[in-house]
């Protein structure tokens, strides 16, 4: 027993060196390359349609008259509407907030926390004396975020993880949540979106894990409105009968940090449309 412990403790530092976000990314991407050899990497931005040819045709027909067009217009209006103090959202962002979606989330080394685009939109409001917005029900936050994604289409995700303990901890925390079985049904995110992706759950095919955040917020025709990534995370947790986390919580921010890092190199194509 003692000997085993000794060997284990000797191995620990070397294991920590081996497991890095970059190594995780390579493992993740090559897993999907082997799982779906016919899907080119850049196509994963299309979510489940990258692996489901028959559903893809219907979806492409739907995209000819995108159901989210009015939402993008509304988002643009809100984005340009001055706050009570006269500033606009653009004043808080690099390049006035245009074409920057791919840089989120990032790790703020001063605050030592993950900042998502939607979190930054809310921070911007607070800084300008306005109330933060809800991540749920497809209201203003989803619209502004959808517009900002729209102006960034075609840019490639480039999430950076600074080499600090806090940043790596946030990444590891998101990764742990991704792989931990939760809820009454005992599913992890990875159960459906890594191990069982491509199989059928009733009539649905769980989408592959890489490419998930690229098309958010999404317009869901079943709900007739926009859904933010955090509302989608919460919806998933709810369906596996697990306790959810609040929109903008550290837990969901870190989860977004992990999943978006795993989608690095893919194009922003939000807002997407889904059934």
């Amino acid at each position: 027993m003692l000997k085993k412990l000794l060997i284990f403790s000797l191995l620990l530092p070397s294991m920590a060196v081996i497991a890095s976000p970059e190594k995780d990314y390579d493992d993740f991407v090559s897993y999907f390359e082997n799982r779906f050899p016919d899907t080119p990497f850049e196509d994963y931005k299309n979510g489940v349609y990258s692996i489901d040819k028959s559903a893809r045709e219907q979806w492409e027909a739907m995209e000819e008259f995108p159901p989210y067009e009015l939402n993008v217009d509304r988002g643009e209006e809100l984005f340009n509407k001055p706050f009570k103090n006269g500033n606009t959202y653009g004043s808080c962002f690099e390049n006035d907030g245009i074409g920057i979606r791919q840089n989120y989330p990032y790790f703020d080394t001063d605050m030592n926390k993950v900042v998502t685009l939607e979190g930054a939109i809310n921070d911007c409001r607070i800084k300008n004396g306005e109330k933060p917005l809800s991540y749920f029900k497809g209201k203003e936050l989803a619209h502004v975020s959808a517009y900002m994604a729209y102006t960034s289409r075609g840019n490639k995700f480039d999430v950076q993880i600074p080499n600090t303990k806090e940043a790596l901890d946030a990444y590891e925390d998101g990764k742990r949540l991704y792989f931990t079985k939760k809820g009454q049904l005992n599913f992890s995110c990875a159960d459906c979106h890594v191990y069982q992706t491509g199989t059928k759950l009733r009539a649905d095919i769980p989408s592959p894990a890489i490419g998930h955040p690229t098309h958010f917020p999404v317009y869901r025709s079943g709900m007739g409105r926009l859904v933010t990534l955090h509302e989608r995370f919460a919806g998933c947790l709810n369906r596996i009968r697990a306790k959810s986390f609040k929109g903008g919580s550290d837990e969901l921010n870190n989860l977004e940090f992990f999943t978006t890092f795993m989608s690095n190199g893919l194009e922003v194509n939000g807002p997407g449309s889904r059934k």
Partner: protein
Amino acid sequence: MKNLIKSLLFVIIFTPISSYSDNIAEGKKLTFDRKKGNCLACHMIDDGELAGNNGPPLLAMKARFPDREVLYQQIWDPTKDDPYTFMPPFGKHGALTKKEINKIIDYLYTL
């Protein structure tokens, strides 16, 4: 008195059979119900529509699970054998009661 004997006889003769077939019917309902077993999410079963395919089809269950207890444990807590299994621990996590699992097994044994 005569009537009492008659009704007692009726009970003795028909109860086991009718309750067993009731169990099978209820078991099928529980098996298909999305809020209960929702077994069709992953398993092809009998005449169930829109069945998933990431679990094995539920066929010849008596031949595959001659020991009822093994099948019971597989539904109660499959993580005991395999902590990474995709199958939820229906009994252990309180999604199904003992009674419900037994009814489901009665139904599965007809397949």
